[in-house]
């Protein structure tokens, strides 16, 4: 079992829909949680990061962390065709060793007009 599990999709939704993207993880020591967006043939770019449990909102995006369930989510409101991309979750430990994020395999999202 991988440390970080993420459904690869593809997830296809109509424009304007609310999108929910999720990851589960097995290592309870993970404390920093990030979401990256990757367009085709481009490198990933950071969308959001959160520390420990709770919610964080940035425009149409909301990141949610539930450490008790080892489950993180990214919600996209009023989805747009330009949101079509692969979304990767990533997480890191808080202490000890070097800072090397562990990534999920990514979920491919398609928003059709």
């Amino acid at each position, binding site marked *: 079992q991988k440390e970080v599990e*993420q459904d690869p999709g593809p997830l296809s939704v109509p424009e304007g829909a609310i999108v929910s993207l999720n990851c589960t993880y097995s290592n309870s020591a993970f404390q920093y949680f990030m979401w990256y967006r990757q367009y085709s*043939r481009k*490198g990933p770019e950071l969308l959001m990061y959160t520390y420990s449990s709770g919610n964080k909102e940035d425009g149409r995006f909301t990141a949610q962390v539930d450490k008790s369930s080892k489950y993180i989510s990214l919600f996209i409101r009023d989805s747009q065709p330009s949101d079509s991309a692969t979304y990767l979750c990533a997480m890191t430990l*808080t202490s000890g060793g*070097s*800072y*090397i994020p562990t*990534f*999920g*395999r990514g979920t491919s999202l398609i928003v059709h007009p």
Partner: protein
Amino acid sequence: GAGVSQSPSNKVTEKGKDVELRCDPISGHTALYWYRQSLGQGLEFLIYFQGNSAPDKSGLPSDRFSAERTGGSVSTLTIQRTQQEDSAVYLCASSLGELRNSPLHFGNGTRLTVT
């Protein structure tokens, strides 16, 4: 300012040949990472450099893979005697590295195809 730059963007090589992939990180970033992304797979960690510390090579899949970082800046990932299973996108990222929430900035990768 410029982002992370990787070259070449595409590389096709014959099985058994050696290849070198280059990464120019963002100026001032002390941390540099190499990841590999295969079709349908997530990012697989390869190697991490932080300042003058010894690199973390724990992700390198075999002794055919090596990397160096000269002068704390440019990095080169070398794959010797390439195999078809080495075909993937090789991504480089850099960060400030001193804070655990310091985001990684990725280049657009080198797409390696081994024929």
